[in-house]
């Protein structure tokens, strides 16, 4: 039986609840990428192999409102898959997911933007895709532009923006959505220190307003500074969880030891 319903589902409180979630990817070894190959395979009676990988295994988390939870772990350990399940983009293969509230995934610098449109037009575009109404976007427009410090360049096409400008604008649109659940997946990589400090400050404020924030970054100092609690994942599973400062330190130490071991062995 899945875990019992928590009593914290008061109206207006965001809920993110994953219990016993599994996600299987089917990697088609030679999935025909082209129609031609698909036809050829059919004609030749070729059966292609399907490799199954479980990207997420028995994953359970229930972040509290007001909490910033970090997911750490090596590449390919399933962090992004978990976040996509929370965002509603991927369906879990097994297990149950309950998400209540407006979820806002933040995209990598400029990912949702159309190159040939201006910054302003892109605010409308990505705002609408994120689920804002036109009136809501119009109401928040000044704040979005101001927060990004984009007054002087918001009318120029996005293709002329630097990656820092893209990131500032993208973050600003998402942050002004007033989401209940904010997903921050590795988006700060190209930001300068001043910008990151502002983002950290902003995330803290969002959390204090009772939101749930899920945070992924490979910058461990950043995870330490931002997160309250950390889930350490390996091969799709949570192997440890605990307060950010302690667990991150351990994670870093382990990573270093592994590197030394491999380096020593390889020489």
């Amino acid at each position: 039986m899945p875990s019992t319903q928590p009593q914290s589902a008061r109206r207006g409180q965001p809920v993110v609840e994953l219990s016993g979630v599994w996600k299987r990817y089917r990697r088609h070894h030679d999935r025909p990428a082209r129609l031609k190959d698909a036809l050829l395979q059919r004609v030749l009676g070729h059966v292609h192999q399907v490799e199954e990988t479980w990207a997420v295994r028995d994953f359970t988390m229930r972040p509290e409102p007001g909490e910033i939870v970090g997911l750490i772990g090596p590449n390919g350990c399933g962090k992004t898959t978990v976040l996509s399940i929370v965002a509603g983009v991927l369906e879990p293969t097994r297990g149950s997911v309950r998400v209540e509230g407006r979820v806002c995934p933040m995209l990598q610098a400029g990912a949702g933007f159309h190159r040939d449109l201006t910054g302003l037009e892109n605010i409308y575009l990505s705002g609408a895709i994120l689920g804002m109404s036109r009136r809501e976007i119009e109401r928040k427009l000044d704040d979005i532009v101001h927060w990004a410090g984009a007054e002087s360049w918001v009318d120029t096409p996005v293709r002329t923006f630097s990656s820092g400008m893209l990131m500032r604008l993208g973050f600003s649109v998402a942050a002004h959505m007033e989401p209940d659940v904010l997903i921050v997946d590795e988006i700060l990589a190209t930001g300068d220190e001043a910008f990151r400090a502002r983002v950290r400050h902003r995330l803290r404020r969002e959390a204090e307003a009772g939101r749930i924030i899920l945070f992924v970054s490979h910058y461990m100092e950043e995870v330490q500074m931002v997160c309250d609690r950390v889930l350490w994942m390996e091969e799709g599973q949570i192997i440890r969880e605990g307060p950010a400062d302690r667990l991150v330190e351990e994670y870093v130490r382990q990573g270093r030891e592994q590197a030394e071991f491999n380096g020593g062995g390889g020489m």
Partner: protein
Amino acid sequence: MTERAPDQAAEGARAAFRRPDSGDGISRVRRLMELMAILTVAQLKARYRRSFLGFLWSLIMPLVQIVVIGFVFQSLLQHDIPNYTLVFLTALVPWIYFNDATLASCPVFLKFRDVVKKIAFPRWALPMSIVLSSLVHFSLSVVILFAVFAVVPVRFTAQFWWMIPLTLMLTLMLSGLALMFSVLHTYYQDVEYALTALIRMFYFVTPIMYPTEIVPEQYQYWFLFNPLAAIAEGFRSILPDYSMPAPEHLGFAAGFSVLCFIFGVLIFRRMQGQLPEVL
């Protein structure tokens, strides 16, 4: 904190999402309409902004085509088709709509890849916005080209209203095709090439640059099975023939459009769930 849920024997997964704004039907529909409008406008702006002549450019091409092919037909092949300019034009403009919408819908998910992979939103809005932006383009072309062709004396009769149902049928058909091709192309990335080649061939067996009347009678029967021929001839009966489109053309075009739409929706629904994983 993490009492693990015991392994669920059943593969059935439950996912429940409650968004604060998804409950209210009216505001949801309204937001969807706004999303469509914003996407459509974005497509149109992106399409015209980077070219020097912008919208005019896409009007010049059909005009050049008409002049050149008109010369070939009338002067070189000595086919005397009365009102040839109008005969060609009234069929060419809807054809361009068909051509634009189907081909532009193919790469739409690849273009919006990051968004599709990260954000849960109604994905059908992307191919539909392609159809709508092509529809806007089509409508503008109709208005402007007929203004240009005021040189050719055109009478405006009540039959012109038939353009609306014809356009709606074509739009319904294209919506089905766009939904279908947008997902198919994401799976098999040569759909666009295959489609380009097919459409080019199809152009010659569809009465666009010639009217069905000049087709030898033993083949005319087969032209009835081409839904685009029905639509092209439907437009042509309005101009230059100033009459109502033939009921068999209307009926066939309507029936095919509905079927095409249903088929497209079914394929899209079946395949769209996998899009974030395939991309």
